[in-house]
């Protein structure tokens, strides 16, 4: 164990004295920004797509939208996140001439990617809500959209909260691929400390611990949210 203590000291030296913690801070910030924004925009995109997919299809516009949504979901579920990042950063954005930072690209790709997955969760969630809820909304004269937003989607979100939590956890961990486009996340920060100190064992263990702590905190947050949403189930 003497060996480990030595390595620990070396890590602390590089972490604190040589300013490694600043990179870790930066990395943690980017990781959270990408995962949280990815989740929020993903829920937004996913909900819109899911609503399009459950729309009545006897008019032309819903059919066209539905076709577009199938293509979108197919692409983002059919390719790895790394490939999507590379395609956006090195191919798509240069072609259309948009210059944005690698963190911004990551937020964009994470949103689009999680949107595709969340749309399928949300569709299952919407379909798990009793059709009578939609009928009752329509029967008092609310439109499809109004009933969806006020009645069906809130209940659908409640039903899919556990899976949504899963998606968030997956997103947090998947941020470790953003270094492919040069964004500095947790992995980049600890890798930097490792390569400077020529000692990788401790940095990687600490990195793993930080991921675990984040996931535990998220799990608790999900539990609390579930509890909050369950208020309409409770009997007084």
């Amino acid at each position, binding site marked *: 164990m003497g060996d480990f203590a030595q390595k620990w000291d070396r890590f602390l030296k590089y972490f604190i004295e040589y300013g490694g913690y600043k990179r870790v801070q930066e990395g943690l910030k980017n990781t959270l920004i990408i995962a949280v924004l990815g989740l929020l925009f993903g829920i937004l995109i996913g909900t819109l797509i899911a609503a399009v997919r459950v729309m009545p299809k006897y008019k032309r516009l819903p059919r066209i939208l539905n076709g577009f949504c199938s293509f979108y979901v197919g692409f983002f579920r059919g390719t790895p996140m790394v490939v999507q990042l590379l395609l956006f950063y090195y191919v798509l954005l240069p072609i259309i001439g948009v210059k944005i930072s690698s963190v911004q690209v990551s937020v964009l790709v994470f949103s689009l990617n999680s949107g595709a997955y969340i749309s399928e969760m949300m569709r299952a969630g919407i379909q798990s809500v009793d059709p009578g809820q939609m009928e009752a909304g*329509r029967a*008092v004269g609310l439109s499809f959209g*109004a009933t969806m937003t006020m009645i069906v989607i*809130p209940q659908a979100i409640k039903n899919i909260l556990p899976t949504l939590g899963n998606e968030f956890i997956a997103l947090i961990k998947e941020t470790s691929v953003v270094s492919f486009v040069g964004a500095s996340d947790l992995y980049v920060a600890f890798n930097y400390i490792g390569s400077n100190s020529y000692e990788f064992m401790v940095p990687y263990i600490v990195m793993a611990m930080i991921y675990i702590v984040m996931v535990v905190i998220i799990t608790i947050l999900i539990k609390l949210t579930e509890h909050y949403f369950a208020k*309409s189930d409770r009997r007084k």
Partner: protein
Amino acid sequence: MSDTKAVNTTEEDIILKVEGLKKDFDDKHVLNGIDLTVKRGDIICVIGPSGSGKSTFLRCLNCMEDPTAGHIMFDGEDLADMSVDINVHRQNMGMVFQHFNLFNNKTVVQNIMLAPVHTGKKAFRKLKEKSGYKSVAEIKEKAQKEAMELLKRIGLEEKADVYPSTLSGGQKQRVAIVRALAMKPKVILFDEPTSALDPEMVGEVLDLMRDVAKEGMTMIIVTHEMGFAREVANRVLFIDEGKILESGEPAEFFGNPRNARLKDFLSKVL
């Protein structure tokens, strides 16, 4: 089948006129041409064996199911025409469901206020002061006040802020009925309102419906409660295989049925 008192009816009294209504589900013909004239204040009970199309008929009236053919004249427009803005007409045509369908994510009072507030806001955004409201807050206040009055009427004002999951079946259905009343509709459609209730709760729901009927509300009720139909309705229809086979005033309808299938049906249920 034409209206029994059609001779005395003026045009203004007619609130709903159904002509040649047909509904197919794929190649299954559920409704095979239904004609019906409903006047203001009519209480029409629809009875028939299960699978006869009586619920489908009711659901076609407010286009919960789109009719395959025929006309539904309401407020001077044909609801069977797909280009009509059905949402506007549904505000004038309430519906009460077998399974109550209260909004699970809203409290009891929110359930009642939701549609009035939403339509009020919509009118306010469009017309501003001309809508008769000064602000969105005023719309909410008014809707809340009316909702509380309705709850008081059914003796559930202390349940205003609980969620529907805490109510009994009878309470849920009574809330569902006042939710429909909150929109001040011209007609209310009832789709087997007591069929999902425990027997001891049927009475309270029928009492409320009786009460609503006395106020002159026009009601079309699909039901299995023959006693209620005989007592409250001014016309009873018997539907089987997607057609109205007999229609008449309750005394004549139940006392002296002519159609063989109706006789058979009544002998089983009475």
